[in-house]
């Protein structure tokens, strides 16, 4: 069933109303309306902008759409639900320790100290979401800037930066982050340090990919033209190179969210991540794990949310990859 794939691709390319897509240098993000087919070639073909095309291909991928819906629902829950709960996450109910789900007004039970598990989980969910998205945004931005500038400028700068990248790749990030957060500042904003650290160890791998992609983009005529017209390096990078690798960057950022959430949960599990009294899904899981065999609800609530969250993020990432890759056939035709 895989043998006929190349054939299908050829047919699809012929029928494709936007056949120029694969060879068109203008990628998502830049003036999308101009990507339409020349009218002479396909007079009756409906004009489909690239944005519409991508949206259509994404919507065809059911797991990705479900994932997107669930993530949006989680965002809404994490910020709306706490306002309607009878308990705040840092409030303790002194009449209910280890109360099973459903006792009193504790929908998901209470912890050892008497805190409401539902309120804690919502608080943890919002923290995990913020951390995940912030880390992904930060690390992809760094990767894009470093990777493309390294490829474009080259020379000594490239050699030096690639040394740093390779060095960071070899370092065991888990131990280093743990060492820094143990000795680092404490307080309500300590999680920001965690964000920075996770991003700091996350960007090198993607920056290598960005570099190799930028290497081919920088040889294109429009980049050459921009260079000879005297455009500054910064502007060339931001206006011409980075937009043309944006599809890779979007997918990278999306998958980075999943990695960051898991990394944060892993660190928090050992107490190196988000510190009490604040909480994250990982911190909650660690708390619940110690008594999981006798009081499983403390563990199960955050664990379920964590697994669903990561699954959804990964599904969106896969869907975006299929939708943004012009050569991919998994999203169906066009």
């Amino acid at each position, binding site marked *: *069933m*895989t*043998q006929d*794939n*190349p054939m299908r691709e050829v047919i699809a390319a012929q029928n494709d109303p936007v056949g120029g897509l694969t060879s068109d240098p203008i990628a998502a993000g830049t003036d999308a309306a101009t990507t339409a087919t020349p009218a002479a070639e396909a007079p009756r073909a409906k004009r489909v902008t690239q944005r519409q095309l991508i949206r259509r291909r994404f919507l065809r991928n059911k797991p990705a759409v479900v994932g997107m819906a669930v993530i949006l629902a989680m965002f809404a829950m994490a910020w709306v639900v706490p306002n309607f709960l009878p308990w705040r996450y840092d409030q303790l109910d002194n009449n209910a320790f280890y109360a099973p789900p459903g006792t009193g007004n504790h929908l998901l039970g209470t912890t050892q100290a008497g805190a409401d598990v539902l309120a804690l989980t919502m608080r943890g969910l919002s923290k995990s979401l913020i951390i995940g998205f912030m880390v992904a945004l930060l690390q992809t931005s760094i990767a894009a800037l470093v990777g493309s500038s390294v490829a474009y400028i080259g020379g000594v700068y490239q050699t030096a930066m690639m040394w740093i990248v390779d060095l960071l790749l*070899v370092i*065991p990030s888990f*131990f280093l982050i*743990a*060492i820094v957060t*143990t000795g680092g500042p404490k307080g309500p904003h300590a999680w920001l340090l965690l964000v920075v650290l996770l991003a700091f160890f996350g960007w090198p791998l993607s920056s290598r990919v960005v570099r190799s992609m930028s290497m081919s983009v920088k040889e294109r005529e429009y980049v050459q033209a921009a260079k000879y017209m005297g455009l500054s390096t910064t502007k060339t990078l931001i206006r011409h190179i980075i937009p043309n690798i944006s599809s890779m960057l979007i997918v990278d950022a999306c998958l980075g969210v*999943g990695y960051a959430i*898991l990394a944060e*949960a*892993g660190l928090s*599990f*050992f*107490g*190196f991540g988000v510190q009490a009294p604040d909480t994250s899904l990982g911190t909650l*899981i*660690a708390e*619940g*794990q110690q008594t*999981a*065999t006798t009081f*499983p609800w403390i*563990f199960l609530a955050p*664990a379920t949310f*964590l*697994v*669903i969250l*990561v*699954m959804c993020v*990964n*599904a969106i990432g896969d869907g975006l990859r299929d939708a943004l890759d012009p050569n991919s056939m998994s999203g169906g035709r066009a």
Partner: protein
Amino acid sequence: MLQRYVTWLGNVFGHWNWGTSPKGGSVNEEVSRRMWVSLRLMLPGWLLGVVLGVAIGAYTATKQYKVSDRVATAFTLFLIATPSFVLGTVVQILAIKFNKAVGSTVFYVSQEQTAGTAGFWNLLLDRAHHIILPTLVLTLLGLSSLSRLQRNLMLDSLGADYVRTARAKGLRRSKAVVKHALRTALIPTGTYIAFQVSGLFLGATYTERIFGYNGMGIYGVSTISGLDINGVVAVTAFGGVCYLVGATLADIFVAILDPRVRLS
């Protein structure tokens, strides 16, 4: 400061003495004892994970988009999204439920061995009994990502010309798949697997914590939270050596599998 550093370096490289922990215990002893605990814990799970992962990946690739492939894909995606500490705890909860239902301890959920077990064979049996659940967890974790990787590689190589040629020559499908497609698809997997060797000692930190094994991973974590600098340095250096060994193994493995790579 510099003097102390030189003394420390001299101890490490001259006498192979990695110093002592703040409580006075020797780092050397701890590491040399714990590394075997970790290895005993990881090895069965890792081997099973590799074998099953490659098998499932290769099998689902030949059945692309059929029910078995869909089920396996959904299952592995679920496993990839599940961190080891969640999976381990869920397995523990289920095992205890099972033990209660049966009325006897079928699965041990904690510790490497029962205290006071004597005799080599008794000890071996007892340890084998304790290792069932951790092995289950490690196997599932290992096979999840590996089977995805193997499936994608296999799909590429199944569509390749040489597999079609082999079939056209009249080779049976199973033979064409195993000898021609799987062999090529194993090369990148081999690299991946060989790199996992570096994780054999330090990779199971969460599993160690949950199932109460006192291995290297736990040691690394406890040295950090206990501010045991000599211990941290020793564990990090140990991890670095493991990584180098893994990278070397990866190269050797590729050279064995891929006839195009020849070191002259």
